[in-house]
């Protein structure tokens, strides 16, 4: 359940479907509670590998498909303000670093979020994830401490618990199962395998205590263990 009251949430991820796996349940809970959510999605996952065999899409038609999937996912979650930022999949880390910080600063200045959700630096696995969340941290670091929004990071590197300990934010999301399932289903081109797993799990009457559809966890950003000294 949600512990904090929020006035505006800003979510920043680089790929359509990044929001589905880790935070769609949590976001649905906030949306149900009437909190406005803006999702800045940096790319359209243009370089996604799941094209099927026989293929259902080409390298060139995939972005349009994923754009529609992203919109459908946002509908399912209850995100009303979706911003597609126009970068290309796999290239985020090669953009000008200061330009990336400015992009985040602009969003924060405009929206004045009370909570920002992105990945957790150094525990985000994909180079686009790392570049995205580092730009977000840098933008917020520049703000006076007492004006900073809360910052939550999604971490899923294999050494996450070793490095960050157990997550301090754990949301029970069983009440928004349909929203999360809808978000995952919306990204069918990418999540097909995972949905099959979930279906199997349900059919077998799996009562595992924790899975994609029971809880979501994040880490409050540890400013006292910042990923870099300065930028």
């Amino acid at each position, binding site marked *: 359940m949600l512990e904090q009251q929020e006035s505006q949430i800003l979510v920043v991820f680089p790929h359509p479907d990044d929001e589905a796996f880790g935070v769609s349940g949590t976001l649905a809970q906030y949306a149900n509670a009437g909190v406005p959510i803006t999702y800045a999605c940096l790319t359209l996952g243009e*370089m996604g*590998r*799941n*094209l*099927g*065999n*026989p*293929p259902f899409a*080409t*390298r*060139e*038609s995939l*972005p349009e498909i994923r754009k529609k999937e992203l919109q459908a996912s946002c509908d399912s979650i209850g995100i009303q303000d979706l911003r597609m930022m*126009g970068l*290309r999949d*796999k290239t985020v880390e090669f953009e000008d670093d200061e330009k990336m910080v400015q992009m985040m600063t602009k969003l924060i200045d405009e929206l004045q979020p009370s909570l920002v959700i992105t990945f957790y630096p150094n525990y985000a*696995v*994909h*180079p*686009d994830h790392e570049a995205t969340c580092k730009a977000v941290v840098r933008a917020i670091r520049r703000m006076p401490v007492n004006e900073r929004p809360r910052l939550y990071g999604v971490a899923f*590197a*294999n050494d996450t618990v070793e490095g960050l300990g157990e997550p301090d934010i754990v949301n029970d999301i069983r009440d928004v199962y349909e929203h999360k399932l809808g978000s995952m289903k919306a990204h069918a081109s990418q999540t097909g395998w995972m949905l099959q797993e979930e279906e199997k799990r349900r059919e077998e009457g799996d009562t595992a205590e924790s899975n994609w559809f029971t809880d979501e966890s994040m880490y409050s950003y540890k400013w006292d263990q910042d990923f870099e000294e300065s930028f």
Partner: protein
Amino acid sequence: METVEITKLQELINSFANEDVYIHLETTNGAYASHFDEKVFNAGCFIRNVVVQYELGKVTPEAPHRVGLKLANGGWIYAQGITHFELDDQGRLLMAGHDYEGKLAVALEISKTPFAY
């Protein structure tokens, strides 16, 4: 996309020869390859909107196919593992190799106009 049909694909490759064309060439084993299996050495590359001219292009007979383009300046473009192709609605020749799980492993695309960003 359809499964490679040599005669058809060879004709299409010929139709882009001897003029400036834009190339997208890519190989990948996925950004998560070494996250799921730490023994995997992850390597890949892509180039996009590089202009070249080729004087001879060939697709080899056995599937999955290799495609080689001999460039007018003495250089080469080479792709291995091509399984599918199509001439898309914008007249671009898209070739791709999809693995047994339906994941793209290689792509070679030839266009007379630039690819989107």
